[in-house]
């Protein structure tokens, strides 16, 4: 892999923004990423996004020669980076703009999602009351906890650890430090998942510019982030049929492919972002990435190893649980990894040179991994 991320930015507003549509958030995310890269729209020839990248391109005055509309849920943007790197290597595009915007809270300009009783989820999940993600993505969690001799305290400790990061991040939506006892005293949405164990619901967006060294703006080369390795995969559509309740075979395949491509060892990872729509995912994610043995991630979290000052700093913006979650969080996981590697993060990991980003999509339906680094 020789692709570089030369532009990365989030929308100015994160949280509640009823004055912007989904399209507007995508456009702002794209414009800010271009400004960060020092590029004009006319210098972009490829576009990607989970929401109408061709529409976003038109709104920005971009005439793309390459378009990727991959939408497998919240990890789509990790796949866009991977696909962009491949397109650039193949000569199909030279500079790709990836955007995300979602009015998850205000629902301005969003595409309605009516029930589809003929779909598989409509036939085999929704009639039972399994529709909100906290009643579906969460279903395998008890099995994971049970098989490893863990309980709800392990989920609470994830929240406690991530609040230690978000407390240091001015833009984070949830910044109060919490104790395990306070997390376990919070109202239950779907036991064992309490409110702080479930992601935020926000408006926001962001953008990325991916290119090659040859086409990188000269002023950006020193702060460019290298795409060292990538992987992606998909699992069954129905969560009951996920082959392994300890996570996602797609995530493990994606991680193995990404590490093989990068040549990095697990021990060389300085910083980790795991898509955390729910509090069990950082545990399962660390294990799927091969950064913790099966069932052992909770010990690392409980011992403070993923907290500030620990050996495996994880979700350093506070994650989807405490920073922001528009509905498709993957863009924000990448943004935080780029900030950390540029040494521009509010809660900076000293000397971070490599970052592993794991995204999930759907209800364990898809997964993708990016390994990023700085010279």
């Amino acid at each position, binding site marked *: 892999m020789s692709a570089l991320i030369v532009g990365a930015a989030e929308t100015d507003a994160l949280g509640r923004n009823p004055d912007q549509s989904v399209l507007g958030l995508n456009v702002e995310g794209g414009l800010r990423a271009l400004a960060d890269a020092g590029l004009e729209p006319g210098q972009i020839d490829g576009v990607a996004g989970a929401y109408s990248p061709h529409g976003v391109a038109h709104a920005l005055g971009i005439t793309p020669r390459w378009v990727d509309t991959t939408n497998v849920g919240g990890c789509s943007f990790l796949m866009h980076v991977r696909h962009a790197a491949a397109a650039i290597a193949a000569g199909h595009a030279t500079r790709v703009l990836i955007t995300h915007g979602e009015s998850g809270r205000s629902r301005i300009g969003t595409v309605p999602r009516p029930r589809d009783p003929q779909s598989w989820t*409509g036939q*085999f999940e*929704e009639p039972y*009351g399994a529709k*909100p993600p906290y009643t579906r993505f969460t279903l395998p969690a008890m099995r994971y906890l049970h098989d490893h001799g863990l309980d709800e305290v392990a989920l609470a400790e994830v929240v406690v650890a991530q609040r230690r990061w978000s407390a240091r991040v001015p833009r984070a939506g949830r910044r109060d430090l919490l104790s395990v006892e306070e997390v376990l005293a919070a109202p239950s*949405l*779907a036991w064992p998942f309490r409110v702080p164990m479930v992601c935020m619901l926000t408006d926001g967006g962001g953008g990325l510019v991916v290119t090659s060294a040859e086409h990188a703006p000269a002023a950006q080369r020193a702060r460019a982030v290298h795409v060292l390795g990538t992987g992606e995969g998909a699992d069954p559509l129905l969560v*009951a049929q996920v082959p392994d309740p300890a996570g996602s075979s797609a995530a493990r395949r994606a991680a193995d492919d990404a590490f093989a491509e990068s040549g990095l060892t697990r021990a060389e990872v300085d910083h980790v972002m795991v898509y955390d729509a729910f509090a069990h995912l950082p545990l399962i994610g660390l294990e799927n990435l091969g950064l913790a043995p099966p069932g052992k991630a909770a010990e690392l979290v409980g011992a403070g190893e993923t907290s500030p000052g620990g050996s495996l700093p994880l979700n350093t913006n506070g994650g989807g649980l405490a920073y922001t979650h528009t509905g498709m969080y993957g863009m924000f996981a990448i943004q935080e990894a780029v900030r950390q590697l540029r040494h521009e993060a509010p809660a900076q990991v000293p000397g971070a040179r490599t970052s592993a980003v794991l995204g999930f999509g759907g209800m364990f339906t898809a997964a993708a991994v990016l390994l990023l680094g700085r010279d």
Partner: protein
Amino acid sequence: MTTTATATEPYPVPRPTPETRPYWDATARHELVHHRCASCGSGTQHPRAICGCGSTALSWALCSGRGRLHSYVIVHRPEPVFAAEAPFVLAVVELDEGVRMTTRIVEVDPVPEALRLDMPVELRWLERGSVSLPVFAPSPEPAA
């Protein structure tokens, strides 16, 4: 979490496609079936065109109606249409045939103390208008 449901909306019920029609026709007879591969013996709740082993020798087979509690959550804040039923136990049951399915556990207090993973469960039926949904209730431990 967004939903278009309101308290006055009818319960969501499955609408069969040609591929799933045999499954829902069977439930109307209070029979639970699964899609089974004659070559490798594995099964799934939903129909497949081809098995993971490569075989196309797939057909519908009757389930025993016995299984074990694989995993669950206790839903305290459901979609509005299900509000009157909360809290309820949403579960993954693994049938004796090795098939996993999303379902509910009924005839049990919706508290963690009553829901031991791997406890045996047996088939019941939940009537929703013209559709019968397979659900499960705790069953006595089989004799050792």
